[in-house]
């Protein structure tokens, strides 16, 4: 018996732990390899086109002709281009106003949809419709709604006796801007509303009961319970919303093609027009590249907004 025990202990000494052994159980090292395939895809399909775009913006490439490096010439040219600056202004206006409204309306709708009401499931499905319809299709619908002669909005207002002549929705610069912003809001609200609704449903009803007993009014419940608990998901959904709105192309292109007289050009549509339709790849790329700093800024802001809050479950940050 004792012999056996001794024999056991007398086994060959444990192998020295080598660096390789340590590496094998290192989570970061392992994680690196798991990440590689995804990273490879990203590099191939995202980073390469991005890099190519940036490179083109420093050349005088035209369609069908490789360009030569011209340094910042395209950017110098753009800095004196009033149309470019107008597109920057339009993009900021479009993104700012549309995102703000989408957030406000989306949150309001989400709260409304979270109440008990008859036909709840059906109403929720209806809300999603603008999101499901292909953009181009809804853009064409809006095009008709805003048509200078056949607009149903003008017609209704005329019937009501509020106006005498048709409104020139898409023909006047400011009317056109507000019209496309409106269309974008209409299209973007469902995404935000449904995402926030999902967030609302994770809030335990007993918190509202506790708050009721603590004496909270409806507004205070929103202000102190709903809103803070929703901030993580608001940060995510608004980041996406801002990015999508900033880079929007389809809706504008289908409704106005940037007109009237470039009044609704966004950076994305202007870039497309210059690069593909005009053939000036270098200049178009420069416009597209000019969007990057704005997008980075938006991502940075949301990055800080997205930080795990101290009260949230999970490790870190406390």
């Amino acid at each position: 018996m004792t012999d056996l025990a001794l024999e056991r202990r007398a086994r060959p000494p444990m192998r020295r732990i080598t660096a390789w052994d340590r590496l094998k159980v290192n989570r970061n090292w392992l994680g690196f390899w798991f990440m590689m395939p995804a990273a490879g895809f990203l590099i191939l399909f995202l980073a390469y086109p991005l890099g190519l775009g940036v490179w083109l913006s420093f050349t005088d490439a035209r369609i069908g002709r490789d360009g030569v490096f011209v340094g910042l010439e395209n950017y110098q040219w753009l800095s004196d281009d009033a149309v470019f600056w107008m597109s920057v202004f339009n993009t900021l206006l479009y993104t700012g106003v549309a995102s703000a409204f989408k957030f406000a309306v989306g949150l309001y709708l989400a709260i409304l949809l979270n109440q008990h009401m008859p036909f709840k499931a059906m109403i929720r499905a209806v809300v999603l419709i603008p999101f499901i319809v292909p953009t181009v299709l809804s853009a064409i619908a809006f095009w008709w709604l805003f048509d200078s002669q056949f607009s149903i909005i003008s017609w209704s207002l005329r019937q009501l006796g509020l106006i005498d002549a048709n409104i020139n929705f898409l023909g006047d610069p400011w009317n056109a801007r507000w019209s496309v912003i409106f269309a974008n809001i209409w299209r973007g609200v469902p995404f935000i509303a449904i995402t926030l609704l999902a967030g609302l449903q994770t809030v335990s009803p007993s918190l509202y009961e506790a708050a009721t007993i603590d004496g909270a009014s409806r507004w205070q419940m929103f202000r102190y319970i709903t809103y803070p608990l929703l901030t993580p998901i608001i940060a995510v959904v608004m980041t996406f919303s801002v990015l999508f709105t900033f880079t929007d192309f389809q809706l504008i292109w289908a409704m106005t093609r940037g007109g009237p007289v470039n009044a609704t050009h966004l950076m994305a549509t202007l870039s497309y027009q210059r690069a593909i339709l005009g053939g000036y790849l270098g200049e178009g790329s420069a416009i597209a590249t000019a969007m990057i700093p704005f997008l980075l800024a938006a991502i940075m802001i949301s990055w800080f907004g997205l930080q795990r809050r101290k009260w949230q479950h999970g490790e870190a940050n406390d």
Partner: protein
Amino acid sequence: MASVTIRDVVKAFGATQVIHGVDIEIADGEFVVLVGPSGCGKSTLLRMIAGLENITAGEIRIGERVVNNVPPKERDIAMVFQNYALYPHMTVAANMGFSLKLRGAPKSEIETRVRRAAEILGLIPYLERYPRQLSGGQRQRVAMGRAIVRDPQVFLFDEPLSNLDAKLRVAMRTEIKELHQRLKTTTVYVTHDQIEAMTMADKIVVMHDGIVEQMGRPLELYDRPDNLFVAGFIGSPAMNFLKGHIRGNGGLAFEGPGGVRLPLAVAPGASEGRPAVYGVRPEHFALADDGADAEIQVVEPTGSEIQVVAKVGGEEVIAVFRERHQFNPGDRIRLKPDPRLVHLFDEPSGKRLSA
């Protein structure tokens, strides 16, 4: 502090009525425990007092005021929920001070009151933590802290200890009781655990299927249960019931299953041959030569006592002895109930036959 009066209260959810006319008087400063099996309507009744459910019929008063249509925040009550319902995004201090903040109390007042409550509950070291960084017992205390900070007229507790492990539950039970002795706030406490009810209550209300079966002081319910339900519900291990008939001829006795004769001290009226249920608590058996013949099935020593499952006239009964008898399964013993401590219930109504 205030009394609470519940008069003829009925609650229906749509077409299903779940509370069928409940009357309860709760005196100022009293600790009342609502106890009953799952689904009997305890939470519903508590939530009606809180104002979280409306009252279908009847009347609830807090103090002199009828509160049927008073919104919860004006009822001046505080409630501790079973899942605590702590605000996850607020620190312990903010959780406890939330109601004061909503009332617009000055910061300094909130701070002193939160601190005082935290001292009572031993939460001072945790004031800056978030609920997720607390243990179950600490969360439970924060939930109580949130209630006592407000210094309400009435405390409402809905099974506050059911999420805790057995040991912590016993400790918290004592803590809540001490807290009540200190603050003397009228308290309504819901539980389905009859031991919790017995140990904590000034008055127990036993509910069953939406009605009150009996209410009274804990020992009153233990000594004189009004009916079979209360008799079986209060006390652990539960009271033994034996069906049979009362016999008046040839010495008063109860004829149980298989013809066993069990002693009776006094006869209820019109007794000869009357069908009844004979109830005897496990701790009221003694070993005696003139006892009923019993065959031991199982012996369960718990250290402080011995619990014996035995067959009497074909029925299983449980007896508990404080002495360390040497019992073995299969042994035959003679069990004699203490005739002064047995209970008789009418068959089939289940009502106590007053002796």
